[in-house]
């Protein structure tokens, strides 16, 4: 039943400026499932994530979201995915709280959930810092924090462990596991060895 899959991809290929980045990928993603994408530098992990989200147009192949020809970047009813990319989408001139508030409001996040997540990442003391003060790892944690209170069921993560220390890597893995166990799905590109529940691994390149 194609219609049951959250993502259904068949024979996806993607070319950029005439270069073939990846080709003939087929897979599907269901709820409570995770996909880990591995591959050398330049093998097309980021490109694949962006194709799936709709930021890059696939060259050939078939891509369905919830059995339909929709794409998260074009869908305007509710957030379909929660995205963590190479860019952190943080405004240095605003405080951490202001940065988060905006997304809380457009995603209609409950304030209790917000406080809970802030606690998980031990981010209480940073809330009134200007975001430009944060260290590289702290910025990354801020992005993760935002990602994890987004109401979307599918998480797209591009090398989420970047800049994180050991402790925060473990927190990351635990929230990822929790998300999967509570019915969410994850697609994650990484060079690390993750142990997530119910995971499939794909290698590119």
């Amino acid at each position, binding site marked *: 039943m194609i219609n049951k899959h959250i993502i259904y991809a068949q024979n996806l290929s993607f070319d950029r400026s005439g270069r073939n980045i990846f080709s003939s990928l087929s897979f599907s993603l269901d709820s409570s499932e995770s996909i880990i994408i591995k591959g050398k530098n330049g093998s097309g992990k980021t490109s694949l994530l962006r194709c799936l989200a709709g930021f890059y147009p696939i060259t050939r192949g078939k891509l369905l979201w919830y059995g339909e020809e929709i794409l*998260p970047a074009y869908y305007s009813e509710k957030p379909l*995915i929660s995205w963590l990319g190479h860019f952190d989408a*943080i405004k240095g001139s605003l405080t951490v709280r202001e940065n988060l508030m905006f997304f809380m409001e*457009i995603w209609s996040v409950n304030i209790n959930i917000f406080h809970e997540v802030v606690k998980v990442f031990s981010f209480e003391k940073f809330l009134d810092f200007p975001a430009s003060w944060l260290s590289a790892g702290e910025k990354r944690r801020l992005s993760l924090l935002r990602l994890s209170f987004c109401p979307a069921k599918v998480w797209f993560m591009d090398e989420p462990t970047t800049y994180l220390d050991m402790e925060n890597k473990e927190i990351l893995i635990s929230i990822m596991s929790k998300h999967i166990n509570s019915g969410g799905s994850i697609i994650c590109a990484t060079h690390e060895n993750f142990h997530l529940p119910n995971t499939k691994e794909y290698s590119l390149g």
Partner: protein
Amino acid sequence: MRLFFKLVYRDINLVIKGASDTGAAILFYLLAIIMFPLSSGTDTNLLTTIAGGAIWMAALFASLLSLDRLFRSDFEDGSLEQIVLSGMSMEIIVLSKCLAHWLTNGLPIVLLSPILSLIMGLDYEYWWILAITLLIGTPSLTLIGATPAALSCAIGKGGVLTALVLLPLMLPVLILGSGAISAEISGLGGKGHLYALSAIFPISLLVSPFLASRSIRLGWE
């Protein structure tokens, strides 16, 4: 619609916090006007004659200056991706950014215009027509500017090209705006110019969100 206003609010907040160039643009506008008398000598008659045109030109440059980064700062740090994934259509995003831009750029320009007319020695009977042309014209400047501003995300550099692409598109607004004032002063009546100026707004309101959102997506491709 709720999201629309949240986004407008955020952008205005960013301007207030100094993260955006829009504030600079207003300052630029003010200073440019103040410098007119300094550079062209202080012959009052002369000043009065060019006052309308000078204020309009300063307004145009002020928009131009700030438009270059209308989408680019959000595009470069990934905010725009986050926003479009949050279930807002790109057209709405473009419109809300334009509204925020106009509120922080166009509106101050309109509000400051009486003071500036005073500085430039424009006869006070003509203040209203200056203010009206600016009120009608500045939203069009913002809307027209949105597409080149979005294209500059796609190129990744902006600057040269934004200006090159923008100016010819904005020229009609400038010509009609300053033309209305000089027509009024010369006694011919600026109504015709005003009508033509007001016609630009609905057209750009229809066309620009569509073309600008295409351009931004092009930047992601």
